């Protein structure tokens, strides 16, 4: 009945984790016909500068539980986050990992696929680590059929401040083209 898909984005404060969820959520909600999505995130001072995570749940029907339970896609940008959430990855789920910041261990084996991206390094070539999240989303876009590139770019253009657009587009592109 349900075509539920759960994505968890996780990393540390400052990596723009929530923005990843917000963009993906919006792309799916507003631009993927027949799909709904809900985005939830961790809040509050306890999560400032510390661990940060957010969930996007996608379904073709009303989403009755907005948080992740068994993660289908785990997009992980920090070691701490990896250890915290890997137990909740569904057997056969997919991992996207910032390869320089996370050392995978045995637990990753339950994944059916693991995609590795040096997102921060890519971002640094653009002048700031802040583009790592968008690079990662480009990589996710290329390797799944969660959302379309065109829709994503449209949403990003509307959400990101004009002066950062250019670099973000490049980051996305670089992530997308990473093999």
């Amino acid at each position, binding site marked *: *009945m349900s075509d539920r898909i759960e994505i968890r984005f996780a990393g540390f404060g400052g990596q723009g984790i929530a923005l990843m969820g*917000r963009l993906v*959520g*919006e792309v799916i*909600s*507003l631009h993927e016909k027949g799909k*709904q*999505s*809900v*985005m*939830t*995130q*961790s*809040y*509050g001072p*306890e*999560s400032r500068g510390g661990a940060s995570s957010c969930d996007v749940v996608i379904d073709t029907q*009303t*989403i*009755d*539980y*907005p*948080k992740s*339970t068994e993660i289908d896609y785990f997009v992980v940008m920090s070691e701490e986050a990896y250890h915290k959430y890997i137990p909740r990855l569904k057997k056969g789920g997919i991992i996207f990992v910032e390869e320089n910041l996370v050392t995978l261990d045995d637990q990753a084996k339950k994944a059916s696929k693991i995609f590795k991206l040096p997102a921060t390094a890519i971002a640094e070539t653009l002048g700031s680590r802040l583009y790592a999240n968008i690079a990662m989303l480009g990589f996710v876009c290329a390797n799944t059929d969660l959302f379309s590139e065109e829709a994503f770019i449209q949403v990003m253009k509307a959400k990101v401040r004009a002066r950062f657009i250019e670099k973000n587009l490049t980051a996305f592109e670089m992530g997308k083209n990473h093999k």
Partner: protein
Amino acid sequence: MSDNKENTPMVNTGEYFTSGNLAVAEGSLAAGCKFFGGYPITPSSEVAEHMSIKLPQTKGHFVQFEDEIASIASILGASWGGWKSMTATSGPGYSLMLENIGLGIMTETPCVIVNVQRAGPSTGLPTLVGQQDIQQARWGSHGDYEIIALSPNSVQECFDLAITAFNLAEEFRVPVTILMDETIGHMSEKLVIPEKEKIEIVNRKKPTDEADGHLPYKADEDLIPPMAVAGEGYNVITTGLTHDERGYPALEADAQKVLLTRLLDKIRKNKDKIIRLEEYMLDDAEFVIISFGISSRAAKGAVNLAREKGLKVGYLRLITIWPFPDERIAQIAEKVKAIFIAEINSGQVTKEVQRVVKGEAEVHGLLKLGGAIHTPSEIVEEIERRLK
């Protein structure tokens, strides 16, 4: 987002992916809210933040006051100035507002209060979900009264019920509370803001008689007095004291009886106009799950799950929590074996259902004490356990 003519609602028609907090703010703007007096508190602060951006664009005012007491007092004042007004807070702030919510009830002042519930008591879990202020919304202020409280379960409904809340406030001249919860407030999903023409707006009834001899608290048949506001020449008058139709203090039991009866009845006798329910698979149901707010999403999921398992479960969602739908629940109770209430508190709506069903059906609370929401399967398991 457009439109800034004075005193016209700001309707930002379009599709958005946004949070419940922003949606309730947008709904309020669309309802014509022009004044927000508030004080930040997690998890409601985004409502204030959004209003601080938008209200000045629509020639309204946003003021962050020194505390919640000033906030609620200010919105009562603004309402008497003729503006639709609101505040948003969470449990601790709501507790502080209670005295002046009472003033709003006594002076029949339309306004809207958003309570984005977090887990309590006291400071509790400021960033995590609770639905523990349900009975507080009903009983928190001293003295007797009836109020209206609504509870959305989606981002879209945050928008929609904000409009409903303002409409009910204006129609019944009463502060209306929107009982959100942290999850609804913070989660993002699709919001569609319709065109302005498609939004139905209710405004307070105005007096038509002469200012001279006008009786400001003389109600029409519907038990609601027309409302003149400041500056219209009616020399409006308010007091929190028991008062007569002139608005003069009348410190005696008889006047109290007349006034309070009307204040109670204008809600009680108009229940049909106020109560909104969502029903699902009730026709053949042997069991019912009653729920509201974020919990109701899992509850509805649980109904589907249970049906897959062959359990005849139905679903009743309280969109209006207060006044309580006594009659409908009593009807349902006669037809079913057991009623389950999924809520994130120690049984606040469960108690109410127990009162109403008068033993006609078993009543079980499926309770979580705060900080986490139900999953659909959890609910089904618990039902199965109880039915054994």
